[in-house]
């Protein structure tokens, strides 16, 4: 029995190196025990990995998939990946077989990770932690992703926020970007970030862009699941918006004036005249007209 511990930081490379070694030495999946750091090694396990030897060719689609699946929360992810990689040796077409249950499971895990990355790009909220007048401004965010997504998603933030320093702190890992260079360190407990006045403006925006006449709470919740709310400043406004929406919508409808018969007539008139007003320039100085 072989026993490998894949570290939290740099898991993708570590898994790939180990898997290459095992594959080259033709070690079947049931002889390998893949573990996360901190879990007690199994009794009787030899604690060792094999050095990679020689060139091993693997489908590019598999590599891309593995690069996401390694960040999944499932403890068995490394074993599942190696198990499938093992099968690919003499059945390379399996990587395109949408009917294979083993692949379907990995694809599902890949999708979970992609979704988690996507939500992270969307829902991280920075607060300013430095001097707004400094040549490079600095920001920090606390985030709680479902999977281990900080590492594969950090480059997105580096591409986007090129002229500022930032850090994203999660329970599992911290990503820090200073002068455009990203590094990772251990996770932390929720930090006390300074208040940020722009949050108040953002909440005001969130409240006012909402249309109470179209309340669709389930649509909102399916895209912005409740588990994220505790770290979204704007979420504090949701309960009240939902509660007052029907009343606000009704008030607007009630306040609406009745439909004058004039409407139909005016339309007919205009139709009869042909497009008489076409091309007519609007009067730019027309005085505000009041409804009678």
């Amino acid at each position, binding site marked *: 029995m072989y026993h490998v511990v894949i570290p939290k930081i740099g898991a993708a490379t570590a898994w790939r190196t180990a898997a290459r070694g095992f594959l080259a030495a033709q070690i079947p999946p049931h002889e390998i025990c893949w573990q996360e750091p901190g879990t007690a090694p199994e009794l009787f396990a030899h604690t060792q990995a094999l050095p990679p030897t020689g060139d091993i060719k693997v489908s590019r689609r598999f590599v891309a998939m593995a690069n996401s699946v390694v960040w999944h929360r499932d403890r068995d992810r490394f074993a599942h990946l190696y198990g499938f990689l093992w099968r690919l040796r003499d059945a390379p077409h399996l990587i395109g077989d949408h009917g294979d249950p083993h692949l379907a499971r990995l694809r599902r895990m890949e999708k979970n990770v992609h979704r988690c990355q996507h939500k992270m790009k969307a829902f991280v909220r920075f607060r300013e932690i430095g001097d707004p007048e400094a040549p490079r401004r600095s920001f920090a965010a606390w985030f709680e992703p479902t999977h281990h997504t900080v590492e594969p998603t950090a480059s997105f933030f580096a591409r986007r926020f090129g002229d500022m320093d930032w850090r994203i702190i999660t329970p599992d890992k911290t990503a820090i970007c200073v002068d455009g260079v990203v590094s990772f360190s251990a996770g932390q407990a929720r930090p006390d970030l300074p208040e940020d006045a722009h949050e108040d403006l*953002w909440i005001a925006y969130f409240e006012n862009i909402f249309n109470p006449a179209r309340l669709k709470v389930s649509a909102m919740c399916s895209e912005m699941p409740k588990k994220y709310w505790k770290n979204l400043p704007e979420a504090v406004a949701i309960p009240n918006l939902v509660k007052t929406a029907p009343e606000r919508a009704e008030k607007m409808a009630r306040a609406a004036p009745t439909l004058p018969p004039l409407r139909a007539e005016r339309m007919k008139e205009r139709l009869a005249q042909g497009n008489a007003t076409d091309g007519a320039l609007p009067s730019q100085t027309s005085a505000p007209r009041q409804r009678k």
Partner: protein
Amino acid sequence: MTVKRKLEILSDAAKYDASCASSGSSKRDSRDGKGLGSNEGSGICHAYAPDGRCISLLKILMTNFCVYDCSYCVNRVSSNVPRARFTVDEVVDLTINFYRRNYIEGLFLSSGIIRSPDATMADMVRIARRLRKEESFRGYIHLKTIPDAAPELIAEAGLLADRLSINVELPTDAAVEAYAPEKSPEQIRGAMADVRHRKDAAQDRSHRGRRPPRFAPAGQSTQMIIGADGATDKTILGRSTRLYGDYKLKRVYYSAFSPIPDSSAKLPLISPPLQREHRLYQADWLLRFYGFELDEITSTTRDGNLDLAVDPKLAWALEHRALFPVDVNKAPKELLLRVPGFGVKTAKRIVSTRRHCYLRYDHLLRIGGAMKKAQPFIVAGGWSPGSLTDSACLRARFAPSPEQLTLF
């Protein structure tokens, strides 16, 4: 007036524009450390409001003062809503600070018409220029252009913004004339044609092989208000088909007319069901990505309107049962695309998977087809719908049951 108060008024005024898309522009980032922002193809929805709509952009009006009197609009001159006006600095500052906190993908700026169309457009262009040139902002900018603004302004707007849009407002010319008396449908179309030509021209290389700067790389879009006039879905879809064709629009947005504060006496009191808007989007999608022809979709309409109970693809399949069931192991992709419950991705996967294995029903489940819907319309290994395809009550299987009656 505080910036917060202005923001409240000017975002409230902007919410009736359905578009919040930030996808499909040129790829760029700020890894060089000399700017702020990136664009990676697909836009990100940073939040969802309780109306289920995505919040991707800071969608605001520069001002909601307006000299026009469009009946469906809260900002029309005759409405009594509170008014405000942002300065150029305020819009730039809000955009940059929201962006840095990862609230938004960029700015969607429109405006009521103050002083004159040119003056209004010039102010909007000034904001975009400040963002791009002084703040080195590389995020997304969508400008709602004013149809009768000077061509130089539109030309500059297109070089600064990712997307330009001009709303056709209502599905027919007669309705525009009745409800937006100062606007001219012809002028709106002229402005869309102008944007299309500039965009096309920016694609041609010069004789030296150099490419001119890109013009509105994310294209142009428009919005139509649904249910304010009497236009049928048939008329609406006919209009959008022409808009897509004539002006190469990226998107036509349909916005169900919604009651607005202080609404005009000229408008219907009842808002149309949101379901109608949804069906129109589905039909629009079928026309653009599923190979449906306009008359195929409209042939299933009743009195010119789409069936609200079932989606337009299912409605079409129910009327063309002779074509079904389709054999998933043999049928060409075009036919797979017609199967209710199969999306573009499903059809593609079926074609690639059946090359090396005979597809059975449970394969299809894993591939991701909505099988409950597809069942009556397909044959696969271990599955045949039998007489289900032709059964008279097939529609009832899908249509929501009529509202329950209660004892009175």
